[in-house]
């Protein structure tokens, strides 16, 4: 069973992602901000992380940098309501970027691709 950590400051999003991904057969844990995510990573040992960018406290980009200090291999998908981060994708060490959308098809496809699932 693949494990996914969902990091988002919006509770409803965390709930939606968790339910949708669990339905697809993943084990899902959630974190409400960057600091909580940093605590969860060594404990939960996720196979993939979805990371919201705009969060209070430690934002997504800072969190990404901190996770990458210890964990280089976990695929990380940046999720945001902002469209304009696309251009900066290459300068970050994330693996994908997804614009948040009610239709989770793109997110799910990206997860499967990164986890090499059919």
């Amino acid at each position, binding site marked *: 069973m693949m494990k996914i950590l969902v990091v988002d400051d*919006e509770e409803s*999003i965390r709930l*939606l992602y968790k339910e*949708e991904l669990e339905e697809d057969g993943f084990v899902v844990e959630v974190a409400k901000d960057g600091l909580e995510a940093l605590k969860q990573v060594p404990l939960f040992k996720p196979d993939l992380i979805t990371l919201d960018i705009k969060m209070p406290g430690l934002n997504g980009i800072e969190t990404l940098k901190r996770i990458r200090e210890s964990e280089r291999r976990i695929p990380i998908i940046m999720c945001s*309501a902002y*469209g304009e981060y696309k*251009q900066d994708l290459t300068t970050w060490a994330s693996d994908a970027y997804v614009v*948040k959308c*009610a*239709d989770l098809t793109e997110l799910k496809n990206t997860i499967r691709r990164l986890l090499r699932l059919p």
Partner: protein
Amino acid sequence: MSAHPDGYGLLKKAIHLSSSSMPIEKKLTGMFQLIADEFQSDRSLHLQPEAIPKEGFLFRVAESRKPLWVDERNPFQEEALLREERDLLCPSFACIPLFDDTSFQGIFYVGFSRSRTFSPNDLELLLLLAKEMGAAIRNDQLHYLAEDHERRVKQLSTLWELNKALLTTVNFERIVHMTLTAITLGKGLGFNRAMLFLVDEKKYGLKGTMAVGPNSAEEAGRIWSSLSNRRENAAELLAHIESTTENRSILNSIVREIEVPLEHEQCILSRTVLEGRPFNIRLSPEGGEWVQARCERGCALSSEMGCYVSEHLSRDPKIYAFATIPLWGKGKVIGVILVDNLYNQNPITEEDIRYLTMFSSQAGLAIENAKLYRNLEEVHQELKEAQTFLVHQEKMAALGELSTSIAHEIRNPLVSIGGFARRLDRTLPADASEKRYAQTIVKEVGRLEKILSHILTYTHEEPMAPKELDLREVMEESLSMISESLRNGGIQLIKEFSEKVPSVKGDYYQLKQAFFNLINNAYESMDGKGRLSIRIHPLLKNGSSLVKVDVEDTGTGINPEALHHIFNPFYTTKDDRLGLGLPIIHKIVAVHQGQIEVNNHPGKGVTFSLTFPAQEEKQR
């Protein structure tokens, strides 16, 4: 034959003659006749001051202002004689200087072929007659001077009036119109026709600017007789010319077409500018031949050489007389005024040219000022437009910031609303009525998300990925996105692409989007039937190379009230669409340093013209 003339009768007749209104030549002839009758003299002459040699006895008489009497008692003793003097030698003669306090009017000579003696009475009478003669000559001179002065004063006051009229406006068209009218008014300078050609410094040529003059001899007669009945002076007549007064003469439309390169050394117009002096091209008194055929190429001699002036302005180039004078601005020639008397055939005199030159020196400054003022106004207008544009840009920027942050705030809740609605939809059985509700929520959320991405596309600066593009290819690509709809509907598509179109540096995706929006708008406005014309052509404007893209439809056009808003984001006339199509086009075109023009015909259709700067052709 009386040896002793009747002094009283003689003087009376002489005074009568000199106070008559006859011309001076006749008066003098009359007096000589009187003297011949009374004194039995054989020859009488009036020697003009200019005709008196610089030495000899005539010179001495003139210098000393003392008469010379030669008779039996005072024989002539001069030995060396000038040729002019030899003719005057008679056995007896008298040379009496004619002068008054202020001037010298020459010498009165009377000669006798027989030797005689002047009696004291003779001397006195001849001196008195000479006095009368001198007075008559002086009088005539003064009269002529007075007339001349009067004419000059009249000219000057007309000039002053005209200049005053020119000072009432800075409108270029009006000043030119007034100047040319002043030249043609009988109460002004009185030429039949006047034309102005101004120097175009960019093209280094002369361009016909305006012409004033009747179209035919009949019209000329009509105008002149109606004007002669009016009481206004020239300046008052000029005041009737408004800047909107249209100059509809045929001559004006001919002159406006004339362009002469300034290098054209043989054209009188061009020479007038280059040499900065007037030319008076006139006929000899015999007619037919040119007195001053200065223009070797055309004006004077042959029209088939393509001379502008003779070809366009005369009825018969071979008998066309006209004059040109340079129009001076501040220190340089800014144009040429051409005048003629085509209808009354009055010869143009040097005096006319002088008068015209005086007038045009003032008119030149007025025209130059008006030209500068016009440039200033144009620049001012451009500045105003630039300011409006900047304000618009700033408004857009502020709006962009606001809408971006709102869009972000809305997007998160939409994700969960839409996401959970999808979950509901999936979990509900196919026959549950709630399933339809859930589907509606999913659909509406999808629509809201689309609007949000539209707003973010518009307000967010997408980075350009500029490449050299062939706009025809980009347009084909945009057309392919909508070709099916076009084909299925009854819309006729007309493509006119030039064979050679320079490339444009730009972002392929952005331009494709802009073209697509244009085509899509046109398609929607035609409601399924009509004609969509797309043209792509190279264009040269103000020396820069451009590519022009026209998209023309036969749809409903744009409501004139809405026209001002069409480039404002979120303005739309269609209920089901967010009005971002045109603002996005506008933004993309602006990013590409292009321009948009809208040619709107409400109810008939609209043409959008986009122009983009072309890529410089690479140097080979």
